[in-house]
């Protein structure tokens, strides 16, 4: 048996944003609607703080996806 595998590990994704920084396409699929957005901050007292802007979006293919923008590194990740 290997070590415990984590679920919902973020994977890097391609997100196109509009001029306001809101996602308008995820992995080449246009965003149909933004359901929710929220900011998460943690470990700010350490040297490796976490700062993420999450977006729950519905794409034109009908998928409900949660992506986040790593506000420190600048990358986009998909979490669901």
């Amino acid at each position, binding site marked *: 048996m290997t070590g415990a595998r984590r*679920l919902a590990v973020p994977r890097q994704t391609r997100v196109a944003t509009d*001029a306001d920084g809101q996602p308008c396409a995820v992995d080449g699929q246009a965003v149909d609607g933004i359901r929710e957005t929220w900011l*998460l901050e*943690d470990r700010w007292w350490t040297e490796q703080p976490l700062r993420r802007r999450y977006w729950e979006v*519905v794409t034109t293919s*009908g998928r409900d996806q949660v992506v986040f923008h790593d506000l420190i590194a600048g990358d986009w990740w998909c979490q669901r």
Partner: protein
Amino acid sequence: MAAAPKLITCVLLPRFELVVAAGGRTELLGVPAAIAPEPGSQQVGAVSATAEAFGVSAGMRLGEALARCQRLTLIPPDPAGVEERWEQMLIALESIGAAVEPLRPGLACFDARGLLRLHAGTAGRGQATGRGLGLAGSALADQEIEAVLTAARRALGAPVRFGVAPTRFAALAAATGARARQPLLLTGDARQAREFLAPMPVELLRDVAGDGELAALPEALERLGIGTLGELAALPRAAVADRFGRSGLHAQKLALGGDLPLRPREAGEVVRETLELPESSSGQQLERALELLIDRLLARRERRGRTLRAVVLSAVLVERGGTWRQRMSFRESLSDPLRMRLALTPRLQLLPAPAQTLGLAVERFGPPTSDQQALLEEPARARAARLREAVRQVRAGAGPDAALRVLQIDPRSRFPERRSVLTPFER
């Protein structure tokens, strides 16, 4: 060989929201009038030209607008009517073969290059009426564009201004300067677009921005003495980035004759159900009306078994109170009326006044539905035994990692990846 520059055509219907909200009362457009603030807002909507002459502008606070023009007539907003009429306009444009990107009600763009051959032969090798700036100089090309514009004008059937340019922003600037029967054609490349835009005021950025970050830029630029797009384009890029960030760089790109590519919408179908309410309704009556609308919508033949991904709930309010509109994207595509009711009923609480008509329209369909039957119906003990045996067989064939279960280790963590891990399935 370089690709031919795009012929982005901007379609501008001036004061579209005001015209729709005024309905047949065209006399209102000749007096100082403005769309009344939406519920919960203090800002007036689109204003008539006469109101503008008094210094009233869209987005101004109601108190200030009334202080500037005491005779200002307030017209109830009609967001549902605007949306419906705008959809008709977009469908009309799509009917001539255009792939349309709607920017806001009354403003849309499409690339006319692909339509030249389609319409140039039919609508007219007639006299070009547009003012041509730049091109490629050929009168023939201008005539071909005119043919496309004629087809679009005929399809829309309303007074409309056209601007044609290699980018969306330059086309919008051209449409703003065009006259109703005289489109403004700028059929050169990005350099000519930049020269055309140079003397234009930075205020133009507000038109393309809507409510976005760019909307705040013109005021800041003017405070710094940068009044025209040419002056903005001449600034060092690094200085613009330092002072205004990403929105500043985007604005400078627009001023330099660049823009993002067009994002045409996918042409959709209109499936809509409305219900006249015998008495002005609210509360439980509205919930029952909504239930009925959902059932009728799901029964429509055009649905062809598909699920619904996004719907629009709208209402006509009592006593000429205007209309109300809410768009809802479901978390997953639905065809279950009960779940649709659960999702939509809370939206009825947002109605600002009792309704006399309630409407529900499909904005986007999802994939076809399928019946979700229960996987197992046996008693729990038999089910558990079969499951154990299944797990044993799977492990024998595919190894110990083949059957795992989810173990919650920090279910309240705000970071999803910290909540659960997979461990061997034991039963």
